[in-house]
């Protein structure tokens, strides 16, 4: 084997989450009311567009979650020794972006630049010294002495637009045929319906969103091998690579935080609401205490303590990736502890309502045991609250990660995330003229992700919250 697969803890949880989503899709297919609710999500143009953008981010995140350790080339003279693997943990995304990852410069360079951002003193070949902007090692080296980058970029940009247009045209045809089969009409009719936005599901906005994504992707594929499209950071790493790598961290924080605390929130919330009495008192006491501590301070205190635990037990982690992954997971747990109380309270209130309803009373009269009632009658009827909480919390958590990492209580400094990118760029703020690209790249990626998540969450809430119908 030329590689050794590595399963980090967050990978496992992410795959469990994906499997749960798959199971949910199967479950929804068999239940007409749920299908109707999801159809409502698909009918809203913003819902479809946001879902497309989110899927693109999820794809990046999943590719970045398939980790492995590459095989090291055998040492000279020991060809027959057992294969040894690199201590560096890579992901499929790293392999796909190997060009971006390895083509580092010396330090800052602006987007599409051919020289470094700062002047440096260099020895001239004919003797003597000069203060110049040294040329980059990788950015724009294919250009000749007299060529300008602008013409080259424009040319490659046009090619990218053409490729994206071709792809979208093909997609449009495929979609028209698919819609036509569903409507039992000609595909020209279907195509016209899509263009006018008259289809049941909002395919037009999905196509527009996919078109924008395809354009971005095509431009990146055309230009990134030749230029640093978003510039390079202090140690010369490509900012586009860093931004793409940050997506996984954001997704992990946004989803796993709610996921890891979900069992507690659901079990305690339902138990408090249904059982009442001292159980209710104890659970209410627990979440009031946790709620009473301001979130940031509880996170700060817990993260400080977690740092001490991780630093004093280096023997637990085989690689640096495992250590930063453990810290990421711990951060998810800590954020979860501060955020599950809200969901727990909502579930308790809903269960209080449900337990007085006829069908629950009837089940009790039939002699159904309490666990059965909770599982069969209460849990399915509070699941919409769980789903809404899951999507509503996502955007807030992604934003929180950036702030926490900035404050110094977020992810491990070696983990690439939007927060660490912004934190690294902090030193550049005072520079004159300002180094703006890594900040702007982090903010722009985060904005698109969070905006899509917010829009999607709104549509999901409208579709599933009975009070909003």
């Amino acid at each position, binding site marked *: 084997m030329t590689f050794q697969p590595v399963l980090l803890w967050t990978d496992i949880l992410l795959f469990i989450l994906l499997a749960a989503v798959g199971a949910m899709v199967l479950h929804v297919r068999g239940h007409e009311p749920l299908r109707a609710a999801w159809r409502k999500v698909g009918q809203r143009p913003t819902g479809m567009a946001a879902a497309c953008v989110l899927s693109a981010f999820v794809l990046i995140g999943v590719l970045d979650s398939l980790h492995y350790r590459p095989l090291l080339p055998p040492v000279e003279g020991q060809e027959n020794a057992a294969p040894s693997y690199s201590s560096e943990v890579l992901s499929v995304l790293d392999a796909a972006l190997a060009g971006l990852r390895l083509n580092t410069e010396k330090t800052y360079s602006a987007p599409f630049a051919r020289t470094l951002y700062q002047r440096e003193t260099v020895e001239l070949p004919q003797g003597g010294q000069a203060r110049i902007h040294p040329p980059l090692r990788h950015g724009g080296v294919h250009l000749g002495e007299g060529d300008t980058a602008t013409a080259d970029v424009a040319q490659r940009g046009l090619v990218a637009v053409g490729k994206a247009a071709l792809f979208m045209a093909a997609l449009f045809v495929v979609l028209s045929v698919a819609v036509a089969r569903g409507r039992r009409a000609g595909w020209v009719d279907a195509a016209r319906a899509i263009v006018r936005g008259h289809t049941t599901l909002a395919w037009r906005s999905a196509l527009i969103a996919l078109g924008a994504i395809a354009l971005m992707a095509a431009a990146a594929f055309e230009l990134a091998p030749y230029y640093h499209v978003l510039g390079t950071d202090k140690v010369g790493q490509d900012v586009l690579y860093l931004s793409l790598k940050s997506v996984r961290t954001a997704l992990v924080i946004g989803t796993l935080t709610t996921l890891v605390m979900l069992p507690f929130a659901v079990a305690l919330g339902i138990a408090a609401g249904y059982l009442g009495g001292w159980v209710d008192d104890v659970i209410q006491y627990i979440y009031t205490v946790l709620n*009473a501590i*301001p979130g940031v*301070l509880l996170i*700060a205190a817990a993260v*400080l303590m977690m740092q001490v*635990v991780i630093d*004093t037990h280096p023997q637990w982690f085989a690689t640096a990736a495992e250590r930063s992954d453990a810290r990421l997971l711990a951060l998810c747990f800590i954020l979860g502890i501060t955020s599950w109380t809200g969901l727990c309270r909502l579930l308790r209130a809903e269960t209080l309502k449900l337990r007085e309803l006829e069908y629950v009373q009837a089940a009790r009269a039939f002699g159904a045991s309490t666990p059965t009632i909770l599982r069969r009658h209460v849990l399915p009827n509070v699941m919409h609250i769980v789903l809404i909480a899951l999507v509503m919390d996502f*955007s807030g958590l992604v934003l929180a990660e950036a702030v926490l990492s900035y404050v110094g209580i977020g992810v491990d400094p070696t983990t690439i995330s939007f927060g660490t990118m912004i934190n690294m760029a902090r030193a550049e*703020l005072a520079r004159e003229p300002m180094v703006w690209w890594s900040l702007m790249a982090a903010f722009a990626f985060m904005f698109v992700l969070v905006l899509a998540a*917010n829009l999607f969450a709104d549509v999901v809430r409208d579709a599933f919250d009975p009070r909003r119908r």
Partner: protein
Amino acid sequence: MLNYLIRRVLYAIPILIGVNLLTFALFFVVNSPDDMARMQIGVKRATPEAIERWKADRGYDKPMFVNAAAEGLDRFTDTLFFDKSLRMFALDFGRADDGRDISREILDRMGPSLAIAVPTFVLSLFVSVTLALLLVFFRATALDFWGVVMCVAMMSISSLFYIIGGQWLVSKLWALVPISGYAGGLDAFRFLALPVLISVLAGMGSSARWYRTIFLEEISRDYVRTARAKGLSELAVLFRHVLRNALIPILTGVVVVIPLLFMGSLLVESFFAVPGLGSYTIDAINAQDFAVVRAMVFIGSVLYIVGLILTDLSYTLVDPRVRLE
């Protein structure tokens, strides 16, 4: 009323004890003081003597709960738990790592924190409610639609961007106000204008949208239809009926944070170098000054509980139906 208040205050005590036990567990049981000392001194330089000195400096060299070496009541008072945890109920937080008294420091820093937090609070409440009323007045029009889109876009922007962008634009490019710093007296205005403005802007999107939902929920009620049927103008309906009735759900979210204004804002204070409690907390986190973080956790919870009681009291002010028994 008084009975109710007394009961609420008594109910706060077990919660504070819970907070206290939780922080004690977090800071002393999860990691022993030895671990913390090793971490702070640096693993390489952590000789047993250095660790002992570090612990003695901070008063961490006592037994956890029971001091077997002491006599009488000292058996229980000369311990970590009593010193570091129970003393907090008397607002005695001990000394920070730089040797200063934490309580003293907190009192000194409250002023600058409030100077930013109170104007921010009042202004953002006013701006958000006004904006929400405007959107509700023009509901189901293009203005409403684009207003909500703006709100969602604004709440999708990281608060760090507002601060960095605002500092760059207003202080650096336009050079209207100093980038950061703080001064007392009238001079404070120059330093406070930008942070307050940025905080209001950063919070506007989500709160305006939230208030709009509350107003819309209220506007579909029967009494609003009655008011319109009486021939009241839409403005009168909005201000005299909808706004007043919407105050109850608004208060639930708003009054609770009033006491927490004392704590200041972590981000804004650290970016603008305001010597308030927010930047104090950040500095403590960065320097891993556990005593200060512990003190802030405790004060934060006390203020939160005060906020809860205030929320209940405020209901009786805006809703005559509510009687606290």
